[in-house]
């Protein structure tokens, strides 16, 4: 009999299984690096990662319907890991999106050896660096990705601020590394990684400071406890406000809301495109999963206090992202600013609280699939070895590669939110939910922002179809089995969720109640 059992601690191992699987696979991946021959590592690592994520998804499905804490003492839940509808749904979404992202990471056909550097420690642009360009990329990226995804899965189920902080760091640190591993334009990539790391550390400091303030106010880091304290704490409310503000700043940084967004375009552009895809899809899910939980579970009782400032941030994010996007000439920067604007729409869902949780999660899933496919296409259009990210290079793509141009058109229309794509159903359901919650003003700004944002997307479509291709137009590297699968899956999800979103809307509807609200 050990102490834990004596204290009556019960652990829901099945509920923790998704995270355990991913983390164990990540460690196994590290062992693979040390033991398996270099030539075979790619196959082993990719299969390991995909199998682990698939198993994690299966485990999430087995847990469906749970509404309890993973750790209980004497039948009373401790908030550290909470298995409830939103948490499980977002874990499942993360697992599926991560599988797709791993496939994109594993793409080695678009350029020789893939987009990742073989030895990151070699000085950029030195003779040794030029020599290693012919070598296949490092396979450490797969365990790193698994650690990040595991952190994200923990982040969306963390029920207290401390667990959440651990998860935040766990998802961030591998991403900082991944951002710097590009094989081409390594200096830009390394600069992006450094920027992301410095600003991420800055934001984490805010988080820790805010956590301290909230602990001072509530006497606990448990979200439900903080919520309770919001109504009956005897401490000065000043602590609460500073705490809320600091926590919000840290999380809005990860979510890329204005004015905490500035790292986004630089990092999205500098990072290897598969990593950008992973960030745009999965980190977005995790960040908003955390925001939804913190504001719904921990800060609902002080909603009146933070409602105004969050509304201002949402408006600034929606308009800012859209307006910045208008003049972009680089497809990756365009997608970066579009991801900022989308963060604004998702903030509407956070502000609307309980009414819109399900619709926000639907939006996250729909947007994730579309954006991953969009970045996958970006990685396919190439000038020689490098991606042709400047939009002028995409002119007339419809004539040379009609298939790719059709895919890009579908994705752009989805991002612009036109009917028969998931972009429309997601925006429509999110905005209607916000109207239910009396957020008319935000919805109007959202619609205006969507209208502005439609312009750069449609400009891409016009560029593809109505312009003459340049004589040295970029080539499209199809078929590349990995990236091709990613594009196909993303486009299929975009269309299915646009035409028949009913099944997923039913699921998010059932999974929209947080534990302890």
């Amino acid at each position, binding site marked *: 009999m050990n102490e834990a059992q004596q204290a009556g601690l019960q652990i829901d191992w099945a509920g923790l299984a998704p995270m355990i699987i991913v983390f164990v696979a990540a460690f196994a991946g590290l062992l693979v690096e040390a033991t398996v021959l270099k030539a075979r590592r790619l196959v082993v690592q990719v299969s390991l990662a995909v199998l682990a994520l698939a198993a994690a998804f299966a485990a999430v499905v087995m847990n469906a319907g749970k509404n309890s804490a993973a750790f209980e003492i004497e039948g009373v839940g401790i908030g550290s890991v909470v298995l409830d509808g939103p948490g499980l749904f977002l874990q499942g979404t993360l697992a599926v999106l991560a599988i797709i992202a791993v496939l994109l990471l594993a793409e080695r056909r678009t350029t020789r050896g893939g987009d990742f550097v073989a030895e990151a420690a070699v000085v950029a642009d030195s003779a040794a660096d030029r020599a290693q360009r012919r070598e296949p990329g490092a396979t450490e990226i797969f365990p790193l990705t698994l650690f990040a995804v595991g952190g994200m899965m923990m982040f969306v189920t963390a029920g207290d601020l401390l667990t959440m902080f651990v998860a935040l760091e766990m998802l961030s640190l591998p991403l900082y590394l991944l951002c710097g591993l590009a094989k081409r334009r390594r200096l830009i990539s390394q600069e992006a990684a450094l920027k992301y790391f410095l*600003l991420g550390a800055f934001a984490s400091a805010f988080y820790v400071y805010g956590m301290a303030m909230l602990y001072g106010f509530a006497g606990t880091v448990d979200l439900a406890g903080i919520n309770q304290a919001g109504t009956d704490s005897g401490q000065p409310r000043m602590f609460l406000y500073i705490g809320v503000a600091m926590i919000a700043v840290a999380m809005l940084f990860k979510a890329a809301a204005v004015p905490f967004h500035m790292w986004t375009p630089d990092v999205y552009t500098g990072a290897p495109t598969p990593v950008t895809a992973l960030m745009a899809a999965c980190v977005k899910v995790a960040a908003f999963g955390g925001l939804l939980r913190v504001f719904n579970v921990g800060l609902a009782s002080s909603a009146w206090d933070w409602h105004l400032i969050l509304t201002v941030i949402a408006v600034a994010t929606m308009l800012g992202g859209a307006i910045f996007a208008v*003049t972009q000439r680089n497809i990756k920067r365009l997608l970066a600013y579009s991801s900022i604007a989308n963060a604004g729409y998702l903030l509407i869902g956070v502000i609307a609280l309980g009414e819109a949780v399900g619709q926000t999660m639907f939006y996250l899933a729909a947007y994730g699939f579309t954006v991953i496919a969009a970045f996958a296409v970006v990685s396919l259009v190439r000038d020689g070895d490098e991606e042709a990210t400047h939009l002028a290079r995409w002119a007339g793509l419809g004539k040379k590669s009609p298939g790719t141009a059709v895919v890009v058109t579908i994705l752009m229309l989805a991002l612009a939110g036109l009917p028969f794509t998931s972009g429309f159903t997601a925006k429509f359901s999110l905005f209607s939910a916000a109207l239910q919650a009396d957020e008319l003003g935000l919805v109007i700004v959202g619609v205006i922002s969507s209208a502005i944002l439609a312009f750069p997307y449609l400009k891409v479509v016009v560029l593809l179809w109505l312009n003459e291709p340049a004589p040295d137009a970029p080539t499209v590297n199809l078929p590349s089995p990995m990236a091709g699968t990613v594009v196909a899956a993303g486009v299929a999800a975009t269309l299915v969720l646009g035409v028949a979103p009913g099944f997923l809307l039913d699921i998010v509807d059932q999974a929209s109640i947080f534990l302890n609200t």
Partner: protein
Amino acid sequence: MDEISYAPAEGLLSLAWLLIALPAFGAAVLLLAGRRADKWGHWLGVATIGGAFALALAMFASLAGLDDKSANLDLFTILSVGDLDIEANLLFDPLSAVFCLLITGVGFLIHVYAVGYMSHDPGRRKFFAYFNLFAAAMLVLVLGGNYFMTFIGWEGVGLASYLLIAFWQLKPAAATAGKKAFLTNRVADVGFLLAMFTMIGTLGTVDFAGVFNGAASLSTGTSLAIGLLLLAAACGKSGQFPFQTWLPDAMEGPTPVSALIHAATMVTAGVYLIARSHVIFSLNADVQTAVVIVGALTLLFGAIVGCAKDDIKRVLAWSTVSQIGYMFLAVGLGGGAFALGIIHLLAHGFFKAGLFLGSGSVMHAMNDQTDIRRFGGLWRKMPLTYATFAAGWLAIIGLFPFSGFWTKDPIIASAFAREGWQGWAVGGAALLGAALTAFYMTRVFVLTFHGPKRWTDDVHPHESPAIMTVPLVLLGLGSLGAGGLMASSVTTWLTPVFGEAHEVHGHLSHTQVTVATTIVVVLGAALGWLLFRGGTDEVPRAAAWPVRAARADLGGEAVNRGLFERPSRLAASASVAMDGRVVDGAVNGLAAGVGGTSRRLLVMQTGFVRSYALSILSGAVIVVAALMVVVIQ
């Protein structure tokens, strides 16, 4: 009135969908197969319509064996919104049965004829694809079990008509005529749509049974509105006043198209619509009067203009306008005359198709000339065409015992039976129309086949090949006999749809009308013969104002130009100016504003981590400050 209900379809009748599917399949194959089908495509077109005809005959026979004489086939739900359900259902009843036979039967003969007529045209496969598409759409129109289905067919035939009128699209006249037909029909179709919306708004359904059973509960204003809106749609499709102008121009299409679509079937859809909606039209005397006026006016209008035209197809087109006027008159009179209108429609389907195909045969012989002033004396060169055209001529002018006599005379008699001065007015108009018909048809007949040759030098007339003459002969026989055969049998057959006909007695007895009609017809024909047996000038002479007016379509074009074209052009140029200056100005200004803002704000994106961190810091300060402000308040 009895509750109207339709029995579910069983046995052979549940194959009603196949009637539509056969020609639709043909159209799809011909359009999708591309040039590979050039060699055999036309035979597929003929075969599908022939198969549909055989099926229609079998279904007709099995419907005859039923007690309740109706078969309703539910296919699937098109639309389900709130309380409104719109089903895709087909209704096979005596009325749709005779239309199916007409469409597939006459359609089959014209398809066969077209194999010969179009044999030298490079676009023959496309022609047959559109022709099959037309047949499928027309069958949807007459088989549809609710107004929505009818509307689908209605628009489908409109599309096919457009495609076929403008079939020789490189000819500017054909392209313009196609556009004109399409636009005129679109205007009238708004009536159909509004009628459906009114039904949905007041009765909550567009089902025939639902609308007819609920019609009695409608207010007078509503039933008047629905009736007039349906009448507008019917006038558009059938080329009735004031929408008559597109139909003569539609003759720019290949002649088989004129025969099938713009004579025998599609243009009679308006008559079908009114006959099908007889419950609504019988409900409101004002609507009936409107239909009668449209009919009487149009039959005179068409006959007068027909007298002044020199293009053989245009004379026939105006005669179609005029004959459909008779049908409108009949269905407007209501009661027993509904059946008379349908019978005249069927008989007209035969003789007018025969006349058009005959004119096509003549054009074939005369290097595609259509000017009757340059014909003459053709009876020796093309005896079969001559004989069949003569049969059509006898049928349309209505001499005993040919078709028109059995179908037109009763309509004139019913017109005289209308109460009060209206009876004299419409009866007189119908009688005058009969005289004019006899005159202008005789004129066409004589100028084409008799009298001296006035051919241009390069023509060498010859009889058409058998593939064209055999359908001609069959239609000729139909022209002669159909009226007599159908007069009483079809009336009985249609009783389940329109109810028992009551004997009507009016200003003149049936015998008096028959005698009067025969006299004026003989006089008209004799006058035509006397005037034109010696031929005519090869260029038009200056003429008195009535002839000039008739040559100018009685001002129809001028009215269109003044009333619609000029204001529309003005409105169009005004809106272009508005769009260019105001709307585009605003949009471009807005876009420039957004772009400028974007460029100005992006200056903040310096690329330096320190400025990014400053942004985060200032954001954090603002957030804290804002929360504090809330506290202080």
